[in-house]
């Protein structure tokens, strides 16, 4: 536990040193989400998992690279596994705290319903409730969105952590203009999976909005997901998706531990 505190202290120093565009970006995104949650829909909490979560690991790794403090770990009495454990631990806690604050704010927005006062169209969760003929209420949809957003974000944070531990130059390349050149050296699977997650989420949104019409095959999957969501107030769906996200976390943690151990710095 002591080592974890020391590692966290070093990372905190890194984050707070000098200009930090990523930190600023996270703050701006959070404000944007809170505004969207009060002005348009509390379902904005769902988007946090895609927009803000990936920035949390980047915040630490980028500044580490900027300050060249990654060399410190070569002389400090910290093993690679301890470093992986510590960063996974406190970043997941940080993500959870940010999400909790956002969730509480969105819950307040749901109660106040300020978005209804100036919008002509019904809010998106109300539209979903109408489309299910009242089988599921707006409040239930909100909780399902919140849990799904948390699960997506947790997967994204852990996936990003693994990527940064696996590719020591990744944090540096994300800051520089050589991003695309650097990512060429990444394995295809490491590029594909994060891309797929984002594509699937946006596809799902477009299907729900009807921008992309559902053909017979895809509508079947949507129907199964909807059935899971509708039954027992969405608890089965939430249980499955949370299980998926925590197991993904465990998988990425295991991968990070193994890959960072083998990485030649």
């Amino acid at each position: 536990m002591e080592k974890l505190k020391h590692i966290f202290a070093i990372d905190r120093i890194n984050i707070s040193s000098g200009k930090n565009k990523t930190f600023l970006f996270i703050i701006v995104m959070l404000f944007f989400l809170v505004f969207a949650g009060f002005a348009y829909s509390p379902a904005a909490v769902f988007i946090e998992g895609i927009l803000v979560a990936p920035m949390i690991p980047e915040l630490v790794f980028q500044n580490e690279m900027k300050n060249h403090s990654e060399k410190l770990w070569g002389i400090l009495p910290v093993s690679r596994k301890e470093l992986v454990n510590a960063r996974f631990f406190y970043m997941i806690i940080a993500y959870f705290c940010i999400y909790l604050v956002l969730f509480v704010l969105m819950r307040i927005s749901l109660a106040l319903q300020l978005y209804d006062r100036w919008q002509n169209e019904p809010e998106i969760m109300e539209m979903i409730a109408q489309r299910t003929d009242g089988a599921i209420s707006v409040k239930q949809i909100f909780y399902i969105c919140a849990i799904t957003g948390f699960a997506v974000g947790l997967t994204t944070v852990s996936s990003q952590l693994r990527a940064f531990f696996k590719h020591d130059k990744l944090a540096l390349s994300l800051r520089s203009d050589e991003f695309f050149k650097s990512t060429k050296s990444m394995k295809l699977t490491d590029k594909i999976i994060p891309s797929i997650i984002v594509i699937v989420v946006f596809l799902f949104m477009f299907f729900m909005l009807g921008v992309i019409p559902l053909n017979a095959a895809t509508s079947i999957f949507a129907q199964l997901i909807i059935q899971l969501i509708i039954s027992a107030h969405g608890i089965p769906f939430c249980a499955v998706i949370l299980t998926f996200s925590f197991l993904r976390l465990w998988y990425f943690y295991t991968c990070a531990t193994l890959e960072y151990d083998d990485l030649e710095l």
Partner: protein
Amino acid sequence: MKVFCKALSSILTATILAINFVQFVSAEEEPASTQLLPSGMTVSDIDSVFQKYVADCERTDNVEYASAEIGIFRGDEVLYTGYFGETNLKTHTPADEESVYEWGSISKTLIWVSAMQLYEKGMLDLNRDIREYLPDGFFRHLSYDDPITMLNLMNHNAGWQECMRPFWSHDGDVIPSLKDGLQSLEPAQVHRPGEIVAYSNYGASVAGYVIECITGQDFCQYVHEHIFEPLGMEHTAYAPDHSDNEWVYSRRRQMRSYKMSGLLMSYTDLGACLYYDFAYPAGAATGTLDDLMTYAQALINGDAPLFSSPETQKLMFTATDFYGDSDIPICAHGFWPEEHAVRVYGHNGAMEFGLANMIFDLESKTGLVVMINEPNGNWFFNTAPDLVFGTLSPDKYGASAQSAELTGHYLNTRSYHRGMLRFFPYLTEANLTNTDAQRLSGNVYQLTEENQSMLIGARDVDGIGTVYELSSQDFIRDNAYLLHLALFTVYLMLAVAAYHFIIIRRKMKKHGKLTVQRGGAAIAAGQLAQLISPLLALASFVIFAYYHGGIPVLLSGIIGIAQMICIAICAYAAVRSVITAFTVKNGKLTRCKYLFNTVGCLLTCCTILFFQMYQFWGI
């Protein structure tokens, strides 16, 4: 003077008589538009509502319907016909008198009328076992020896579950005979006849085949001869491919179906939506609005043109099933009573192409027919019945202020209760709370929401428990619903866990960190089975939806056998894990891992067995 008085009195008398005559004639010729309907609205009021809706849609450039045709009649008089929208949004073909729509399940009333015609002639006994009319060995999956009567088929309580085999085909060249079609579709009989109402397309089609067996005549041909032709319905077809009416055949292929989808409610063109029904009596009739209205008018005509005696028609509309122990009818020889401001009888229909509704008030002889080309419904379809017949008021049956205990989870009987799709009803349960219902007399409840009410009956069935009755189907209370759903949920979670255990093990092996353990192969096999089994269940769901509500025999056999293999592997892995955990020297963590694997395998086995995911025969 006398002459003057006589002339004056004659003129006065003539004038009075003339005035009375004019009033008499005017009273007989009251315009249709001003006639009062059971809802309290006039026809012109209703037309104004329709026209306002159309104008609002056009004004906001937000048309929320494809097409709708509406007919309102009273006795022999047609009070109103309305044609709205376009049957083809691309070519802007307007809905008109020559548009043809599918009747859907309204077609079943043709079966019931035919049955009553044969009953009237003494050729059919409604209380006799239908197996006496059918060829020997026609049914192959019956679970009970109890007789199945025509009344059971009319009441939809013969005990069959939903068909698990494909009901339709896209290929018009491969339509089996009615007998072969029914034998390929035969579902499992899961309830004793007379116990549970579960709407059954199969049961209704069997009734059509019974008529075919009795008359020795093709059922479609029988309906043409005894219903369509006597009523002059020249623009209605009944064969699954519409080949019995050339005009309908041609017109139907020009029709398009549309579906609103997505939150932005945009229209998707579903095409002509031609499906060829293997059990066509249940839903294949297709025709114009005029023909459907003619048919409906015949059903309420006091002269009963479809029967030899009006008494048979009256008998047809007497109740054969009731809500709870009340005298409120829930079914009348296959016709479904609906409670509005007045009680109406009729039937609605739903097909992949669109919806239709036919309802009429036997007292005032007022009727309504609606036909649309949207399978999800539209504003016209949803509002027309209430506009014409009003809504069931909470006070109609004297609902008490006392709320009733209708808590719990209820499974729809019109679903799959045996075989590999047994998990379906658990995903579509109805959950009631006691603030929703008010008790009427006896075992009848009334659910009221936003000034609209519906009735629910209740009864206790031996061996099943509390059953709640809605129109056309029952709901069975499942006291262990949450436990069953939890089992299914854990089954899915185990699959997710198994997948991750497999990929983590692979990763560790790749980095040389995997230690070989005794029983490791058994664990790995068990985890693979835990992953594959839910994928097979998902596959059955996907195949079922792809074939529009059925799984072909071959595919169900493959899935069933694969599930049996999964059970065997999981059982072996569970036993092996337990033995290894307690016989080999292991650390605590390793022992926990083995026991976790054991529990996972056992839960997977339990799920497959409970939900009968292996069963592909007799369903």
